[in-house]
């Protein structure tokens, strides 16, 4: 394996809580990403995220251990309610985070105008998939890194890399939504809580489980049945894009995608050669044990590939949702 073409990628790991952040840093993360409490980021779940004070402490801990902190302020403030988002930018700058991840143009304008020296990354929520879109954001907001939407093949990522002036961060592991991020109002349609404006997809407060006479478990989101599981079958968390529906008079099917997780470990060397600067692991809502296991395994896999050897990836496969995984759009155009 020609290691000379590979640069050492930054391993970007999820931190849902201060304790989770320390776990990720200790397990070998080069950078952690996190959000402040409230609607300003795309993982606004109860019990998750940081206060401004916790963020400042977390940055001190990470920097003390040679890791970076990236703050996600990547939801879309509705008109007339910008303050939580501008406060979040202020808090991030005060806490000396290494970068702020933005998606909304209004938020990006505030950050650029108020803190011209603050490093900005473009969130996957901005949905910038073409070199032109990425170049536009780079020009307008001095974006230094783009988190690519999960719709390109590795070959296409390489082509994008050659045409843009900023770094690329790519998701490699974890839950993937089927819809382009920042362009999905499915949860909002069913629950009234908006992924874009409230930072919530499929809120637990709107999930209901009911058992029928035969013992099958029906899962609902708001008023809508999303999936059904036979006795003993492992029930996935109900999100609309991984539910089962009937098209016309056909049998129920996963119209969008089955409940699978993204796992690109097999493609890691290709991604590293494609010029991807940072490999991102999803899962701010996951447990510390999960974060520790995934981060350690990826640290090992990346370092092993860099040393020119094949990595053992069996441990990672066991951690994917129900053990089922996909390479999504990355491996081949046939996924589309």
């Amino acid at each position: 394996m020609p290691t000379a073409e590979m640069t050492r990628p930054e391993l970007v790991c999820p931190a849902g809580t201060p304790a989770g952040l320390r776990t990720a840093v200790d397990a070998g993360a080069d950078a952690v990403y996190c959000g402040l409490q409230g609607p300003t980021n795309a993982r606004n779940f109860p019990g998750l995220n940081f206060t401004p004070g916790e963020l400042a402490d977390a940055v001190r801990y990470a920097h003390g251990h040679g890791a970076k902190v990236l703050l996600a302020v990547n939801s879309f403030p509705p008109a007339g309610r910008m303050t939580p988002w501008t406060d979040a930018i202020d808090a991030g700058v005060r806490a000396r985070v290494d970068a702020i991840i933005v998606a909304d143009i209004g938020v990006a304008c505030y950050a650029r105008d108020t803190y011209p020296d603050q490093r900005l990354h473009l969130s996957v929520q901005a949905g910038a998939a073409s070199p032109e879109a990425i170049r536009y954001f780079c020009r307008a907001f001095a974006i230094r890194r783009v988190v690519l939407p999960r719709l390109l093949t590795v070959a296409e990522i390489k082509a994008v890399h050659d045409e843009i002036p900023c770094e690329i961060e790519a998701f490699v592991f974890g839950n993937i939504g089927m819809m382009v991020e920042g362009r999905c109002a499915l949860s909002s349609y069913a629950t009234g809580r908006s992924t874009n404006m409230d930072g919530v997809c499929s809120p637990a407060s709107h999930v209901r489980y009911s058992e029928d006479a035969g013992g099958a478990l029906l899962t609902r989101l708001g008023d809508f049945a999303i999936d059904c599981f036979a006795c003993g079958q492992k029930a996935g968390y109900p999100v609309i894009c991984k539910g089962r529906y009937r098209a016309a008079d056909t049998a129920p099917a996963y119209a969008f995608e089955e409940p699978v997780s993204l796992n690109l470990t097999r493609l890691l060397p290709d991604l590293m050669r494609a010029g991807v600067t940072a490999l991102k692991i999803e899962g701010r809502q996951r447990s510390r044990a999960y974060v520790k296991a995934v981060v350690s395994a990826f640290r090992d896999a990346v370092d092993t590939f860099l040393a020119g050897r094949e990595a053992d990836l069996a441990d990672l496969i066991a951690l994917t949702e129900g053990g089922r995984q996909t390479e999504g759009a990355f491996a081949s155009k046939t996924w589309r």
Partner: protein
Amino acid sequence: MPALAMGPILYNWPVDAWRDFYFRLADETAVDTVYLGEVVCAKRAPLFAPVVEAVADRLTRAGKQVVRATLAQVATTVDRQLIAAATEPGGPMIEVNDTSALYHLGGRPFIAGPFLNVYNEGALAFLAEQGAAHVVLPAELPAASIAAMGRHADRLGVALEVQVYGRIPLAISARCYHARAHGRMKDNCRFVCDGDPDGMVLKTLDDRPFLIVNGIQTLSHACLNLVHELDDLAAAGVTTFRLSPQSCDMVAVAAVFRAVADGLLDAAEADDRLARIWPDAPFANGFYHQSEGHRWMPQPSSKPQEVRQAAAAS
């Protein structure tokens, strides 16, 4: 007096139906602005390309403002070529639905489409500075935020457009779900979406119609109907009401909205007429009222639901 706009056809209609829809629009209605062009799938654009100039010409001669709608997702080489062609200097006014187009426009005037995510005054001010003279708001924006946008748009001299009728665009994906439902994939889809002029209905396991698949796009099963909210929208500074085409008689739909906007028809009577024109989908107005998007929340001007259903059935 707010203007009426006919949004782009989001579905894959046969080219003759596509052309005739616009020819009829040119001849018969009080629609002021017409959006033309493919928003969902680059593979469909060549299908009606042979007639698009004739359609645009006829609409222009009929006094309509014609705007060319552009793709909401730009990723592949073909997508990028379409955007580059649509943004050539000297070309017609376009509706921008992805930032890729802004790169090419370099400050020339454009209309910001509903997929560009203009959620707030900061984004509005930035895009106005970049050349947006007219902005179509995202479908999930609630009344209070529309009103806040109205105040800023007025100050900036930007026209504001809000969808008031038709299925609500909810999501876009890299994968084609029409192809998937037919055991195909996007690259060899054989245009299986052309059998569903209002999209393909997805029902829940308990048989409730829920969503609509339209290629890589997902829409609401319910039909947005803001006929009761037109006065409030106008008062909030919305200058243009968008009707999103369905396969029903859109000329008749436009006539209903025009009559209500002009104060010639009351909204409850309008509901009855709209339900008769397109009985296939229930109404929804939940997003506007900061609720679930699928909800229909009766307004003081509504008739009770039973009365309306009885009227629709008669």
